[in-house]
């Protein structure tokens, strides 16, 4: 096992990051048109329109039940819309597009294996099992010392950090996160936000679901505010937080309950 030093994770990834950025361009703009998703006779996504550019971190925000997580899954192609279209640079979400993205779930889904094996599993899938890269990823999420622990014995925060490291192992062009820090300890929240920021800085598109207003303020380049399955407001972060144009976003930011 190599002694780890926390030096320049960026420089190691600089090449791949620019490559990712070049390839990611082909996935954008992301255009969602008249998207409808129905389940059990209820319309959960209702004629949703949205366009996202390749740049920066987009925060999906809204009250519980607004359809944030659902939209994220639809974008990633985990579920199929009832009607309407999703187009990543002109292409419907398919297996190829899925593999160029990575999704971090609210409740981390970890294999019943060691921390190391969880990373290696994904590295091997992408044909690049490489101990050095694994160590680097583990170092970035602060899990080097727990490398041989069973993944599912880690604390909630450690588990989510591992899930994030595993997501980054695939060198995604788009990183999708579904409320990854809800109910985590502050230290883990800080670390995850830091990594998300670094990742975005390297040109990876981040789409981040949260209903934590503070977190949205810390991370957002632009904010998409969802209400009852459609977009109530989509604005640059500064404009959104200083002067929201929709009444539901205003109420939400003011801490009022939205029905």
């Amino acid at each position, binding site marked *: 096992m190599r002694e780890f030093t926390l030096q320049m994770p960026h420089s190691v990834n600089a090449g791949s990051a620019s490559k990712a950025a070049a390839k990611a361009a082909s996935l954008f703009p992301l255009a969602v048109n008249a998207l409808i998703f129905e389940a059990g006779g209820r319309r959960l996504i209702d004629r949703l329109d949205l366009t996202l550019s390749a740049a920066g971190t987009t925060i999906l925000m809204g009250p519980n039940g607004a359809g944030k997580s659902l939209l994220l*899954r639809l974008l*990633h192609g*985990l579920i199929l819309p009832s009607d309407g279209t999703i187009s990543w640079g002109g292409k419907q979400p398919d*297996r*190829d597009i*899925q*593999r160029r*993205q*990575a*999704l971090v*779930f609210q409740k981390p*889904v970890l*294999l*019943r*294996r*060691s921390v190391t*094996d969880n990373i290696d*599993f*994904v590295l091997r*899938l992408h044909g690049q099992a490489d101990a050095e890269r694994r160590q680097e990823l583990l170092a970035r999420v602060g899990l080097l010392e727990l490398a041989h622990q*069973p*993944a*599912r*014995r880690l604390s909630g925060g450690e588990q989510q950090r591992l899930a994030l490291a595993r997501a980054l192992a*695939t060198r995604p062009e788009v990183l999708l996160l579904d409320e990854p820090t809800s109910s985590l300890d502050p230290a883990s929240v800080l670390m995850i936000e830091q990594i998300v920021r670094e990742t975005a800085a390297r040109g990876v598109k981040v789409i981040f679901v949260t209903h934590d207003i503070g977190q949205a303020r810390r991370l957002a380049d632009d904010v998409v505010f969802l209400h009852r399955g459609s977009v109530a407001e989509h604005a640059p972060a500064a404009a959104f937080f200083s002067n929201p144009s929709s009444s539901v976003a205003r109420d939400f930011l003011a801490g009022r309950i939205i029905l």
Partner: protein
Amino acid sequence: MYILHSCGNLRNKRCNLQDFAEAFRLAFGLVLSGDRDLFEIIVLSLQVSLSALMISCVIGFTLGTLVAVTRFPGRGLAVVTFNTLMGLPPVVVGLLVYLLLSRAGPLGTLGLLYTPTAMIIAQAILITPIVAALTRQIIEDLFSEYDELFQSLGLSVWQAMGALLWDARYSLITVALAGFGRAIAEVGAVMIVGGNIDHLTRVMTTAIALETSKGDLALALALGIVLLAISMTVNALALSMRATAARQAYA
């Protein structure tokens, strides 16, 4: 085969107790004496049942996992079929395999009837549905947890099956034990296709049946105790394996 005497009264309560005591005394005596015939029977029992188990696991793990991770028309029927076949009466399996392997049957030319191979085939047929059905249940539970992750990672069906089987491996030990338990304990199928031939196809259960039919209940019971001890040993080994591994990486 064995020289002993027994109490031999089924109706007399006091005597029944003596039968039990006698059986335990006999069981220990048999094992300690290192009786060669008994050893031969134990080895054959293990060979037949473990071979059947190996075949069943290869087929059952694959089928069970395949059904767990795929959606196809008639899948519900497949699940119901597995679950129903779990209750296959050994005698029926024995009869089917007999008809198949009999010299007058379609596979008669192979000359497999009354051989350990025939017994392995019968037991494999008997326990494959158990292994498949329990595997499906376990893998399906695990898959419901992993499904979105695997989809997101773009895993193929085979990659997903491999990962699920690996992650479920310690639960699958329990599945294998269930299959082994049924195989080693069944008498109906091996009696018919093996013929209970001394020094060739006599296993623990058919020996027990034979001693019962000779009215030697104490010896039959003693053999039963030995069988139980074997079963317990196999279970203990498997579970300690599971525990060791669980300490290492599994949670």
